């Protein structure tokens, strides 16, 4: 299987009169893990919604392997490109196995029956996310971390080449955030799935993604490896935040430490800022 190429060409999209994305063009590295980062309301989720065809761009198009996704039958697209939205709904009382089975929908015809391949895909997805022992539990009884693994299992059962995730770590504590991101790396390495996610946490994004896309005001400010994108200058431009970037001793990737107005040592106080206004001795 050759890795699929997903591109956005000249996207202009939004919800009202003023577009949120303004002429945005990008190519996502096939077979890699990409993270889209940026300040609130910069268009991260809008971009993800366009890529997954949830939102129709006013101009431009999303292209998968040279074909506009608009021209592809919905079900065909759903076999190539999976989506985990930020707040999916688990119907009351649905079991884990039932929910994960929904991932097989695009693989089933109108009247075709559940096959061995469907069984195998669901079992693989449960095993990969270590949710097999939860299979008969109701989803609404699970903890936040377990539930997110179950949703990822559903997306895995869909067996797509590309998986888009909108802030998959929101509402999770740090241990579960790391667990979910590790799981996505497993998936990327084990199955060659191209992973594209919106992430809030810059440091986790830099650690787990091979490719960072920093958005500002609906346009790409920087895109490239974490070392290229996570710099003091770009963080300042994208988030309006002064920071120090150091090497993460655990991963070797860059990580950023924000400079605030308080609790800063003399050496790291933001340049040009007054000393601590509350009179704390330096």
């Amino acid at each position, binding site marked *: 299987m050759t890795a699929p190429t997903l591109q956005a060409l000249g996207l202009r999209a939004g*919800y*009202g009169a003023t577009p949120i994305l303004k002429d945005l063009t990008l190519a996502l590295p096939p077979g890699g893990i990409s993270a889209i980062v940026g300040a609130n309301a910069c268009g991260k989720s809008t971009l993800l*919604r366009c890529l*997954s*065809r*949830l939102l129709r761009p006013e101009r431009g198009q999303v292209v998968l392997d040279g074909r506009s996704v608009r021209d592809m039958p*919905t*079900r065909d*697209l*759903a*076999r190539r490109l*999976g*989506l*985990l*939205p930020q*707040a*999916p*709904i*688990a*119907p*009351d*009382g*649905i*079991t*884990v*196995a*039932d*929910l994960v*089975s*929904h*991932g097989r*929908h*695009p693989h089933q015809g109108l009247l075709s029956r*559940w096959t*061995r391949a469907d*069984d195998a895909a*669901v*079992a693989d997805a*449960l095993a990969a996310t270590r949710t*097999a022992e939860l*299979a*008969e539990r109701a989803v609404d009884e699970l903890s936040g971390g377990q539930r997110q693994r179950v949703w990822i299992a559903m*997306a895995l059962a*869909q067996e797509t080449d590309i998986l*888009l995730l909108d802030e998959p770590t929101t509402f999770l504590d740090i241990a579960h955030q790391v667990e979910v991101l590790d799981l996505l790396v497993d998936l990327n390495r084990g199955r060659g799935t191209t992973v594209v996610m919106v992430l809030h946490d810059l440091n986790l994004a830099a650690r787990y993604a091979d490719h960072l896309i920093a958005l500002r005001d609906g346009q790409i400010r920087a895109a490239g490896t974490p070392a290229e994108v996570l710099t003091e200058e770009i963080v300042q431009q994208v988030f309006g935040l002064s920071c120090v970037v150091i090497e993460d001793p655990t991963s070797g990737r860059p990580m950023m430490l924000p400079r605030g107005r308080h609790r800063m040592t003399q050496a790291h106080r933001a340049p040009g800022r007054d000393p601590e206004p509350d009179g704390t001795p330096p």
Partner: protein
Amino acid sequence: MSGALAPGSPQAGLRGVRHARMAWLFVVICALAAACLLSVGIGTRSVGWAEIAGGLRGHTDTLGHSVVAVRVPRTVMAVLAGAALGLAGAVMQGVTRNPLADPGILGVNAGAAMAVVLGMAWFGMARLEAFLWTAILGAGLAACFVYAVGSLGRGGATPLKLALAGAATSIAASSLTVAVMLPRNDIAGGVRSWQVGGVGGATYDAILPCLPFLAAGLMLCLASARSLNLLALGDEAAAGLGARVDRARAGAALGAVLLCGATTAICGPIGFVGLVVPHLCRLLVGVDHRWLLPFSALTGAILLLCADVLGRVVARPSEMDVGIVTAFVGAPVFIWIVRQRRVRDL
């Protein structure tokens, strides 16, 4: 399902659920058969087995036979109307992802009723076929209006906006219906008895013309079971799994509109069946619409049959209309359901 599965594996668990559902299906079908027998046998005048057997074969030579011959179409009507309303309620709860939705909430019944009353008042409509077309038209217009209003603004037709638009439309249509009817003494009696809702006057002549609509609605609703399963995950997740969200929602809603319009035309608006039945069925078979929809139809039929029989028994020698009975039976059950189960936030 594959052959050798370790007990406790997810597939084995699914199979256990399947067996439980098959058992419930058997129970429900038996209950439906029993309810049909009760409906033919019990009433202001009780009849014996021999008379039932004779009446079913078309004999009308004794009074008992004649009673049975009248009760059979009434029973058929109750089965059809109950099944249609139960199914429509389940579909509408799925379409709007709103546990409190029913044909009443989406304004469909009120729209159908308004159309029929306007037809009676302004066009002197009195024939059942005319009621039928008018009611379906009214139900469809109300549904389209509610969907259009609910789709305005950001995010499209969300469950909350649909429910609000439906409730407002329902109230507006009911008010208009009353406003039209009040000054018209000539039609008030006919409208009132039709409005309360009943299957008592059912004849094959009344049932036949609505069969095509009920059949079309049934097909549309059952065909949308899988789409409804996906819609339950939220519009975005459904789209990600390859559902065409708007088309799926419109198709299922059209099916429900046909069912409600046709039923309302014959029986008047019957409340609570569409609201209560899907909740009961969810307790039995879970949230999978491929099971929930047929169960809702069967259980709706049982509920309406029992309500009709009860209405004949409690007010002897007179009868109580089925719409009143379903309200009395349905409301407490509904309150019980709301208290038992956590009703999901919109």
